[in-house]
């Protein structure tokens, strides 16, 4: 099973690719709404891509209180 570090790296990579932001500009503790400049609709799009990539289901209420990549990765890790 992937480690949390690997999962976090993959989340950052996917977010950078999808929203066309340089990977080196993103770090685990960044607020992804602010850093990526996205709204909730785009966050749902990110959710879809994360579900596809990690082959999991991640209910949108798992986003509640989550705005940084590291915590998002932890939510994903809990379903692997």
């Amino acid at each position, binding site marked *: 099973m992937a480690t949390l570090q690997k999962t976090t790296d993959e989340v950052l990579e996917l977010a950078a690719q999808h929203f066309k932001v340089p990977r080196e500009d993103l770090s685990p503790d960044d607020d992804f709404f602010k850093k990526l400049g996205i*709204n*909730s609709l785009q966050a*749902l799009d990110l959710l*879809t891509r994360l579900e596809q990539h990690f082959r999991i289901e991640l209910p*949108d*209420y798992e986003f*509640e209180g989550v705005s940084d990549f590291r915590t998002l990765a932890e939510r994903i890790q809990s379903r692997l």
Partner: protein
Amino acid sequence: MREFQGKAVGWRTEDGLVELVLDRAPCNEVGSVTLGEFEQFVSALKELEGEAHALIIRSARAEGFCAGADLRELYRESQRLDPKQRLSGVRDFLERIHGVMNALDQSPLTTIAAVQGIAFGGGFELALTCDLIIADKTARFCFPELRLGLIPGFGGIPRLQRDVGNAVVRDLLLTGRSMNAAKAQSVGLVSQVTAEGEAVRVARRTAAQVGKFDRATRIAAKHFAKPIPHEALRREIDVFCKLFVRPAVEAGLGKFVASTDPLPYLP
């Protein structure tokens, strides 16, 4: 009327295929303008059904298929009315939208919803009137109504119960979570999942396939396989109206409207 372009929807017919295209910013929210144009479409459909075999419902908006009821309009309108007027206004709206949804559900045409992005609330309910849902990989389906202190009011619960197991209905309804296309296909809601941007092409290809069969047989098969849950649909309106007058609803709508997010769809 074979072709029409309104402020919120448009339609055209070609080679036996009717396409109803939703195109109202930001994400095809259903308010009074859309409802009026839906009613025009349903009126035109009576004539179009005689010369077509399939109807595709799709969106021209990159944001998604349809985000559901226009909650900003609903809130704005309800604020200027007293409680009794508010309730009768909402009941009238629901009766009208049910008229549209029922006409689509019962159409002799084979109906296909081509879904990309979000199909939330009333948007999901619109897709559920169709015989088939073809979704691309970006599609997400959701009943967010409980977040507003309401239940789906456009006929969604009886139609979803018709199509999938009740455990799935309870999951979507009681958690208000959204479901991606792959999961929706696995539970039997979506018939085909396509690559991003390909749902309309595949829907057209499927419509062409459907058009090969004898018309009378196709119509008889559809009506036999697809009962309309009339009684449950009427009860849904009553339950919705009973909930609508509660303070939780005004608070929920107010919170939605006050959000600075242009499309506040996370729970």
